């Protein structure tokens, strides 16, 4: 089955056709029906116009606002991607494509980025988008008092200025080859400047395919097609309704009874049952979402790489994918780069469950047994506690005694993560290698949850950022993945698929794998068959 998982990854990442997948899966013994359902639903057909798309999202809260700077979960991400546009967009094939920016140029040191803006794009309020709006939208995330979650990723911007109405020039503090990727981040929505200076972040006015008609935080958002939308081949449905349905059962019921047309976060335990329904189909993509067990490399016994390796060999990744993700995911290789990423190191040998090797490394570390506390809570990721319990069972065979400490869900991110020496962590992942590494693996960054410090790694990281040659970068990122895998403080047992449930009435092109719900873009990309 491992092969099939791998093919699914490839299919999802757009590197294999659906037909190839089905053929290969069948060659591996899967039935046609299984293979077809694994491949996901309707790929490519001519989009039709009309209808109301109703989405049930398992996130959202009464404290949500239309300010994308404060957005943390899928609900506002989906709403935001319908209402707003960004300078760049990650396409469903995982490629960076222009959106409000028509094109861009970069200086050889990757420090100065010049963006040409699309002309004649109108905001919902009728104003025509220009460089002033872009600068105001960027500035919303910068500055002393900004509460924006994007503050950290936009921090390398030294200066942003207009070059006429249709050109914006960014000057970076250090070179960054991936900067256009960063501008596709869901926080960095382009909104109209007020009085030419600031934006009104809660106005909900953007250039997106849909205008926000009614916004009830924690309940629903209704959206209506923007008649002046500049994209001709997008925004097929007339209107959309995005409902907050936190309860999995309620969401599933709503989908099966036709109350909604699509949902995210399918309950994995019952996914096979949902798949049986004639009116509903499962869709899944494998992206960058991954779960980790982070060891603080500054704290004994994790200071010793042999101990870390012992723990890495002492986990049965296949079992975890099978049990925790119920097969809806792929195994990880102890680094955070997903298969859909541009520079994923396919050639890096997969680390397997090997109690003997674990024992060996334990011995190398001068230990005969090892006893460690592993903190977990389901707030880390769904099934984290179960995963920890499984890990405990696996590690026991290698003479490692893992004591699973159940932490309270509430306050997990403030009290456990970054504090406890060994804990379960969820990562949504990042679209680029640099972004991912510099968020959590570079020395001294706030979210370096392994407190890991590796000179060679840090050196290549900076170099690769400023390197514009793709093949050179590939080599660098491969090396970094190997370093993290062999010497890092993180156990990455699995990458979880985004598993969605769709009504058979809903059609779409290939699904974007970068985020859930077609890279957040379900509303403007999907249509009714």
């Amino acid at each position, binding site marked *: 089955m491992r092969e099939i998982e791998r093919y699914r990854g490839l299919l999802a990442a757009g590197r294999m056709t659906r037909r190839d997948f089905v053929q290969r899966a069948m060659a591996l013994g899967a039935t046609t029906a299984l293979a077809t359902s694994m491949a996901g639903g309707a790929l490519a057909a001519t989009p039709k116009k009309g209808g109301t798309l109703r989405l*049930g999202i398992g996130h959202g*809260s*009464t*404290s*949500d*606002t239309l300010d994308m700077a*404060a957005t*943390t979960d899928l609900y506002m991400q989906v709403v935001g991607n319908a209402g707003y546009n960004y300078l760049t967009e990650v396409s469903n094939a995982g490629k960076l494509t222009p959106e409000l920016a028509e094109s861009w140029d970069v200086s050889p040191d990757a420090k100065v980025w010049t963006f040409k803006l699309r002309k004649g794009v109108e905001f919902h309020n009728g104003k025509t988008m220009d460089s002033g709006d872009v600068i105001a939208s960027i500035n919303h995330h910068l500055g*002393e*008092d*900004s*509460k*924006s*979650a994007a*503050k*950290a990723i936009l921090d390398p911007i030294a200066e942003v200025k207009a070059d006429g109405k249709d050109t914006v020039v960014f000057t970076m503090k250090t070179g960054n080859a991936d900067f256009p990727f960063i501008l596709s981040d869901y926080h960095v929505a382009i909104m109209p400047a007020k009085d030419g200076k600031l934006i009104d972040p*809660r106005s909900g006015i953007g250039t997106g395919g849909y205008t926000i008609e*009614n916004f*009830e*935080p*924690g*309940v*629903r958002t209704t959206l209506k097609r923007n008649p002046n939308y500049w994209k001709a081949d997008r925004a097929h449905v007339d209107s959309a309704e995005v*409902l*907050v*349905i*936190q*309860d999995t*059962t*309620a969401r599933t*019921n*709503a989908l*099966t*009874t036709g*109350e909604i047309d699509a949902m995210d976060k399918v309950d994995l335990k019952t996914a096979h049952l949902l798949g049986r329904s004639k009116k509903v189909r499962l869709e899944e993509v494998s992206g960058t979402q991954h779960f980790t067990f982070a060891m603080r490399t500054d704290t004994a016994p994790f200071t010793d790489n042999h101990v870390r390796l012992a723990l890495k060999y002492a986990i049965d990744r296949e079992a975890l994918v099978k049990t925790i993700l119920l097969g809806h995911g792929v195994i990880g290789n102890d680094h955070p780069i997903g298969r859909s990423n541009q520079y994923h190191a396919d050639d890096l040998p997969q680390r397997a469950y090997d109690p003997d090797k674990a024992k060996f490394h334990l011995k190398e570390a001068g230990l005969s047994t090892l006893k460690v506390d592993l903190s977990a809570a389901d707030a880390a990721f769904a099934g984290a506690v179960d995963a920890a319990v499984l890990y405990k069972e696996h590690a026991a065979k290698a003479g490692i005694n893992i004591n699973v400490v159940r932490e309270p869900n*509430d*306050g997990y*991110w*403030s*009290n456990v*993560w970054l504090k406890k020496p060994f804990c379960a962590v969820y990562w949504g992942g990042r679209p680029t290698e640099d972004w991912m590494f510099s968020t959590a693996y570079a020395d001294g960054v*706030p979210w370096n949850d392994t407190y890991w410090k590796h000179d060679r790694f840090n050196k290549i990281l900076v170099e690769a950022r400023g390197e514009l040659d793709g093949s050179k970068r590939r080599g660098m990122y491969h090396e970094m993945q190997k370093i993290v895998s062999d010497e890092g403080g993180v156990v990455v047992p699995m990458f979880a698929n985004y598993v969605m449930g769709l009504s058979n009435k809903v059609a779409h092109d290939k699904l974007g794998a970068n985020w859930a719900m077609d890279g957040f873009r379900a509303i403007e990309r999907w249509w009714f068959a």
Partner: protein
Amino acid sequence: MAKILKMVAQRLALGLLTLFAVSLIIFLGVELLPGDFAQEILGQSATPETVAAFRRELGLDLPWYTRYFDWLGGIFHGDFGKSFASDREVSELIGGRLLNTLFLAAVAAVISVPIAVALGVLAALYRNTLFDRTINVFTLTSISFPDFFVAYILILFLSVSWNIFPSISNVSSDLGFWEHVYRVILPALTLTLVIIAHMMRMTRASIINLLASPYIEMAMLKGISRSRIVTHHALPNALAPIINVIVINLAFLVVGVVVVEVVFVYPGLGQLLVDSVAKRDMPVVQASCLIFAATYILLNLTADVLSKLTNPRLLHPK
């Protein structure tokens, strides 16, 4: 009448005092929550700077008593403050939700109260018959199920299998009245099943209790028909306990529906409160709790007044 007015005034004053105590308890409760509220709202993406900025903006750097009395002062001017999390007026946040909750409670009450009282009367009238026993077993069973279980069973049959009612109560203010009712019918039925047993049994018990009283025997020996005895002699005297149990259950309908709201994704006050507790959105928690407490107090007061009004001794003093 003056006596009753005096009692109402006294109870209202006491109620206000209770509300004050409730607000203080809740305030201190939230104050003791570990972790920072700003941190909680910003989630995983919080950095020390953003947290600090947020705290400053919300005035969380002030001592708790200053904030409490500021807040309390605002209440007296009808100002419930602004939500920490969404920066919206609390009253605006709560208003629509409260209406939804009351609407659901009203629909559930309209279904359950008449059925409960009628069943209770019938069971009392035909007590120890098969009918009585069946009703008894049925109601006992229905209160024994966890409410989410009842809800799911209802969804399974009435929504998934037969597709009569929607499985989620997706309501908005622009719906017509009957459409609104239609969409809340499943949660209302769930609540009905949960509370009906209690009301029905109480009605039955009160009436049976009364049926043993000398004036019922007297009425029987006067040759009054069974039905007239129940409606004319037992029911008027059983009103006080029945009203009491109805009110207790109404209070439950308003404040105890969190689980049902979650299952049916109904945008009521309960869900808001649960969200706000998790987010430590203190102004919303405070205001919702005050509303719940006020509802409870007012309903109890109503029950007391109604019991007094149905008691001829108090209505017609010597």
